[in-house]
């Protein structure tokens, strides 16, 4: 919590009020306590208050519930990660207290439910302890016997008091949330909230106030990465999808199943992931590009279909919400270990497109970009998201929907002639002609997985195989030139360039800021286009002494993570080295800086 200007101490008993520009609040309890709801309210409030916000949560991997946390970082300036350390830990049980006290910065505040938590002397010297009988006060406020109901909203009130949050906006959020339900539910929720808000901390704790946001006047939407991806696909014009449930991909299929009918589309739950990929390909073949997706093992099952899409030059969107692998692996933890399968999975020489969104907002726009690339280049496109972006909530400027909205209805007007695999096509691709189209020449195309001639008829000709293989490659080389070189974060020359992809962008940027603040020469680079890589990366790398690729995957047999290995193979540059980890958690800024320093020192 970075204090800027503590206000003058108020007179009498009133607690001190400090101005802060941001705060990290961690809420720890059990999953059934509704702690996600507290986090959700805080994130929404930040969104409506023109502040930036990022959340982080853990889901117990068992359905019966269990320990769970929700961390919210709210800031008046830029918020790039969920925060290394919490300023406030709100904990409901002894296990949440003992399990998470280490995530609190020294001097931070533990706000605990005095009905369930007994403070430990060894912690009391390092952290400010504020005990409130949350459980019993909630029962007192709303009456009844509902034991744990409402204590999350009571706690929200406490937090609102502590941080002087906008009460009117919160009341509105609470009413909206429970709107449509029984009136007594809204009443009870507001009663719990007011009881929490009215609690008098006395001199127990300081109070805080956020400084004015630097992002005045922007309208924000608040959602998680999976929602942003699903809505991005809809805005892009996708109207058909097929999938099979698996965490953390399921949210997307559930959202599309629920939402697509409003737009005249449909999402089909299939018998397995192979059928899903096949069905989406069928719909793509029949008209507009369709989506399939999965996580972990389900991605492995889609590989043969993917190869068909590449060979037959039929577009497809494959969403991969990465989780820890291999096999069933770590279903509810984050990892970036699917880069290889996304880029190289399936047999044969099978070039495809792989895009990696770097934050929640980017999920929305990447979905649109993916659809447009797939449609233009007649190629399957992977969207490599991960469990961390999928589940974290961010506030971002509301997209101009009318402007980004796309209609990708296929054109069925008759054509004179059509060669689906025209070798003379300038950039290696042609406009696809779909079923229902009359072709005057009377010669119709077959979409095929066999090597083929220009009409799609099978061939065993070595020459045609070489030409067609080159065609499938060349169109992506054209794409590589089109996507543009990514922007460097920080100066274009210096000692260290931290390279990342996907969800590590935020922590890497924050690491760059912090390192530069300490006088170190560090810049950052996020690569969104993983395959094909954009042109011009070598020029960027040449400006630095060290290129360190930060990834949430293993260093592999030869000492490099999956992107690092690809970049080394691509550029043969020994200064490209790797920082890896596979603990199932996102990078803390401090982790990145410590690892970077260790590498630089080891070399010296």
């Amino acid at each position, binding site marked *: 919590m970075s204090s800027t200007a503590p206000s003058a101490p108020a007179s009498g008993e009133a607690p001190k009020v400090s101005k802060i520009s941001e705060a990290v609040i961690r809420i720890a309890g059990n999953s059934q306590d509704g702690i996600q709801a507290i986090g959700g309210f805080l994130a929404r409030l930040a969104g409506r208050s023109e502040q930036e916000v990022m959340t982080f949560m853990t889901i117990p991997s068992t359905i019966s519930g269990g320990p769970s946390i929700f961390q919210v970082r709210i800031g008046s300036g830029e918020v790039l990660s969920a925060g290394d350390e919490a300023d406030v830990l709100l904990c409901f049980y002894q296990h949440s207290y003992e399990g998470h006290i280490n995530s609190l910065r020294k001097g931070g505040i533990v706000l605990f439910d005095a009905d369930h938590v007994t403070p430990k002397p060894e912690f009391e010297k390092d952290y400010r302890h504020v005990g409130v009988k949350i459980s019993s006060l909630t029962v007192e406020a709303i009456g009844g016997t509902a034991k744990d109901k409402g204590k999350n909203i009571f706690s929200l009130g406490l937090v609102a008091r502590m941080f002087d949050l906008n009460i009117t906006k919160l009341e509105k959020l609470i009413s909206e949330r429970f709107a449509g339900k029984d009136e007594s539910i809204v009443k009870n929720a507001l009663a719990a909230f007011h009881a929490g808000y009215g609690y008098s901390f006395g001199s127990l704790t300081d109070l805080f106030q956020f400084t004015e946001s630097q992002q005045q006047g922007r309208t924000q939407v608040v959602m998680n990465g999976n929602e942003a991806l699903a809505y991005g696909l809809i805005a892009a014009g996708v109207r058909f999808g097929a999938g099979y449930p698996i965490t953390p991909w399921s949210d997307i299929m559930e959202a599309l199943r629920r939402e697509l009918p409003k737009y*005249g589309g449909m999402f089909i739950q299939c018998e397995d992931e192979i*059928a899903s990929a096949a069905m989406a390909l069928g719909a793509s073949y029949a*008209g507009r590009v369709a989506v399939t997706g999965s996580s972990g093992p389900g991605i492995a099952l889609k590989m043969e279909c993917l190869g068909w899409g590449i060979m037959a030059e039929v577009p497809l969107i494959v969403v991969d919400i990465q989780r820890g692998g291999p096999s069933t692996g770590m279903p509810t933890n984050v990892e970036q270990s699917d880069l290889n399968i996304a880029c190289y999975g399936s047999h044969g020489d099978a070039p495809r497109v792989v895009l990696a969104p770097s934050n929640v907002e980017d999920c929305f726009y990447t979905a649109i970009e993916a659809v447009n690339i797939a449609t233009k280049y007649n190629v399957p496109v992977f969207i490599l998201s991960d469990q961390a972006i999928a589940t974290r909530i961010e506030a971002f400027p509301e997209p101009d929907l009318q402007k980004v909205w796309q209609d990708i209805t296929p054109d069925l007007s008759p054509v004179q002639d059509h060669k689906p695999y025209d070798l003379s096509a300038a950039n290696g691709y042609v406009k696809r002609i779909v079923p*229902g189209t009359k072709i005057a020449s009377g010669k*119709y195309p*077959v979409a095929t997985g066999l090597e083929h001639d220009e009409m799609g008829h099978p061939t065993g000709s070595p020459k045609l195989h070489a030409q067609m293989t080159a065609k499938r490659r060349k169109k992506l080389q054209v794409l590589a030139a089109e996507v543009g070189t990514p922007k460097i974060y920080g100066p274009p020359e210096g000692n260290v360039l931290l390279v990342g992809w996907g969800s590590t962008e935020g922590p890497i940027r924050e690491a760059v800021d912090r390192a530069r603040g300490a006088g170190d020469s560090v810049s950052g680079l996020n690569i969104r286009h993983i395959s094909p890589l954009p042109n011009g990366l070598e020029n960027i790398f040449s400006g630095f002494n060290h290129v360190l690729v930060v990834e949430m995957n293993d260093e592999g047999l030869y000492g490099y993570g999956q992107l690092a290995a690809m970049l080394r193979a691509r550029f043969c540059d020994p200064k490209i080295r790797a920082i890896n980890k596979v603990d199932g958690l996102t990078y803390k800024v401090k982790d990145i800086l410590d690892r970077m320093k260790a590498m630089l020192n080891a070399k010296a």
Partner: protein
Amino acid sequence: MQMSTQTLPSEAAQTPVAVNPTVAERKGLTKKELAADHPTWCPGCGDFSVLALYFKLLEKRKLHQDQFVSISGIGCSSRFPYFVQAHGAHFIHGRALPFATGIALSRPDQHVFAFSGDGDAFSIGGNHFSHTARKNVNMSLVVMDNQVYGLTKKQTSPTSPLGFKSKTDGWGAVDHPINPLKQAISMGATFVARTTSTNPNHVLAMMEQAMDHNGFSFIQCLSECVEFYEGAFDSANPRKGGVFNEVPKEHDVTDEFAAYQLASTPFPGHFGVFYKVNRPTKNEKEAEIIAKHRAKVGEAKDWQILQKTFDRLK
């Protein structure tokens, strides 16, 4: 049937094929117009006759190239789409049905015909066979059952009879064969028929009924592999001294148990429609869901629907 105007290209969606006057007036395509590559099948292969009758069907029913697609998996039989001068796709082994489902659901203006082999449909694609039947997707599937793997040269197939000597069972097949009719019936298929490529009129009749059926229609078509299982179906061919027993006139095609029982008759069994019922198709169910949702959004433009959702996410 209620069509989803949003998943469809515009005009095609508005005018159901059958009532389009310009379509009704045109003549059927001739075999010459429909033939593409010369089939690569072995001389005498039963699949030739299935192809010839498909051409007959298209001609007789005046289906033009903008009205249908031919889809297949992998196998000798699955080479089918290359031989038809029309839109088509040769997909991967075993997955023709989900691929065809993607077309059938997003393009209700198209007749979707899937062609498959016994290995393709009942082994590697066995689960898709069950689920497409259960979902009652509006399309037709013709499985050219030769009771052997033809393309990969004589391995045991899921319909190979016990004792059939293949390269993978030199001593004779030991695994109990699948009865595709029984499987289809038990999985909820709404049209189940059996025919044999040596009886052209019967094949055409089954194809016509399958095409007219609203829902998933499945035809098991015995189709001899002269290369690797010669004479397999002689006992069903009167010209080879066998008997061609039609489904008894008194059989009630809506009686699931009777159909199941009839399908249990030992080889050569019966030929004809075993089971035919009407149940809402997947296409209709999805169209219903869409219609309900579209009614709720009223006159809003599509982007405004998402705008409304975003307004709730503020």
